[in-house]
């Protein structure tokens, strides 16, 4: 006897929950070979708004955690990714049409990159912070602090390896310092991002720290770029969009903006991607009181 197929509903990930799009819309996802894979939620501007609200609410807790704690929580995600390796390999094969070996390499690289960024959580302040020489009897210390809510357009193209590696490379650096993120996944290859949301839901990351939207970046990005409660915008995968207009929108509320990147070196691991989403706090402390 054949079993009835149990099909999965692919939903958004907002505030630690899996809602359908508020609009009720979905779009058809096809694999590299053109076959139907799934109906994926098509997020609306209101979903983006809800995601920003959830992300804002999570900033205090996530940025308030110690760097060491954040590092542990992020590392735990890598552990869970490792356990779901087979699922990610399978999904990458279906979406990108690559071999299992290539997909496996992508998953391994993504996990390694996640671990690499997790390690920076309790170290980047020491590297990017500074004791400043001042002409007076003061200690003068500058330390980087998270900027707040970061909206990210994840890499969109299946090559080079947008599915999982591109997604991880986009969100991990913003999270390290204690920012919360609202990320628009790849429109054509969103499965890895959706599966990652299931990993996140069972990890120790508080709800709202990472919010994942699927759908059309062209539709959602302008709302995120102009949203007054978003502090920074990473246009990493926005190369196909009218991204200069997005930069202009973002400038209205003084957001930090990273431009699109393309090619094999796009979003390569770098501490610059961590420190970009930080603000510098400088403290003066008198030497006289010691």
């Amino acid at each position, binding site marked *: 006897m054949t079993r009835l197929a149990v099909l999965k509903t692919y939903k958004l990930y907002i505030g630690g929950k899996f809602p359908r799009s508020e609009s009720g819309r979905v779009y058809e996802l096809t694999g590299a070979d053109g076959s139907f894979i799934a109906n994926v939620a098509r997020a609306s501007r209101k979903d983006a708004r809800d995601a*920003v609200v959830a992300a*804002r609410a999570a900033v205090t807790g996530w940025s308030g955690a110690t760097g060491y704690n954040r590092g542990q929580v992020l590392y735990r995600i890598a552990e869970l990714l490792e356990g779901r390796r087979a699922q990610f390999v399978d999904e990458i094969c279906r979406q990108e049409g690559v071999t299992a070996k290539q997909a496996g390499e992508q998953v391994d690289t993504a996990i390694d990159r996640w671990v690499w960024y997790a390690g920076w959580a309790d170290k980047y302040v020491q590297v990017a912070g500074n004791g400043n020489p001042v002409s007076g009897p003061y200690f003068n210390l500058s330390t980087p602090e998270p900027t707040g809510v970061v909206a990210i357009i994840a890499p969109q193209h299946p090559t080079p390896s947008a599915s999982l590696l591109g997604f991880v490379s986009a969100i991990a650096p913003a999270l390290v310092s204690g920012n919360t993120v609202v990320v628009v996944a790849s429109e054509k290859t969103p499965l890895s991002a959706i599966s990652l949301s299931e990993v996140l839901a069972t990890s120790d990351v508080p709800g709202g720290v990472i919010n994942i939207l699927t759908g059309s970046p062209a539709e959602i990005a302008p*709302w995120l770029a*102009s*949203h*007054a*409660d*978003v502090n920074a915008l990473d246009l990493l995968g926005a190369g196909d969009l009218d991204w200069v207009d997005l930069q202009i*929108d973002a400038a*209205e509320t003084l957001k930090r903006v990273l431009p699109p990147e393309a090619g094999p070196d796009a979003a390569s691991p770098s501490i610059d991607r961590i420190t970009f989403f930080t603000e510098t706090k400088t403290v003066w402390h008198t030497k006289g009181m010691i």
Partner: protein
Amino acid sequence: MRRKKTIVTLTTALAPAERALNVLGTDLTEKGLRRYLNGIAGVDAVGLEQRAAALGTRSIKTTSKRWALDTIISLIDLTTLEGADTRGKVRSLAAKAITPDASDPDCGPVAAICVYGDMVPDAVAALGAHHGAPDRGKIAVAAVATAFPSGRASLPVKLSDTSDAVAAGADEIDMVIDRGAFLAGNYGRVFDEIVAVKETCRREDGTSAHLKVILETGELNTYDNVRRASWLAILAGGDFIKTSTGKVSPAATLPVTLLMLEVVRDWYKLTGQKIGVKPAGGIRSSKDAIKYLVTVAETAGEEWLQPHLFRFGASSLLNDVLMQRQKMTTGHYSGPDYVTID
């Protein structure tokens, strides 16, 4: 001296309140009052909640929403009721009441600011020329009194609490009922207290501060009790019935407010007098507040949507309304950094 006489008459007959005399007849005794209140039909809880839920599903489109947001602002009692309140806090509250949105001078003002009794002089001073009747675009000062929020004090203490606030310039008094006495079935005591406080609201020049009676519905347990308490408060002379202090959970809910609006509507049909309703506590989003507007319009009628007949007791609601309003003006979403901190 008149106050003391009221206490003496507590056990035998009720203080003569004009409305109660008209409705219950001249034989105004505790027994008669209890018979009247217990004779009020029970509430269909399922029907009430379903009606409230249905009223909450209305879709409000752009132009109506803009009107709704402006109406909500004009109906807000901007409130600060913390032990940590300072004169500076009250001053900044008053400034916000006058100019809710610094980026849009056309916005506001709110209906009133609501503070503890001892803060009334500071509130009056801070409002200055803006102090006045909300129906004429000014801002009233409301004071909570009668041992707010618990109401656990003797009657003379409650009355002097009230007269202090009135003397200091409060336009509205938010009193709490004695929930203990109400739940024990001692309706006469609750009734007499409201009458006495109402009497104390009178000023020397013959005018009177508006009296809002807080039922604290979260402690009344059943809808039947809420309905009875609403009738009791109106019979005793309350100008407004208010759901909650905001210090008890649950505070205002849509079904409870709907129920109180129905009492107000029935009272209007019975006597032609319009009583106000004030849900307070727990209303934080514009979306929720719009549901209340729909409920008021559909239950009591649209003429209730003005400051002397309907108020929101809220503090954080205003910021959310302002953000929604900014969204409608600018076309992009606003954030908490673009409104003042409470």
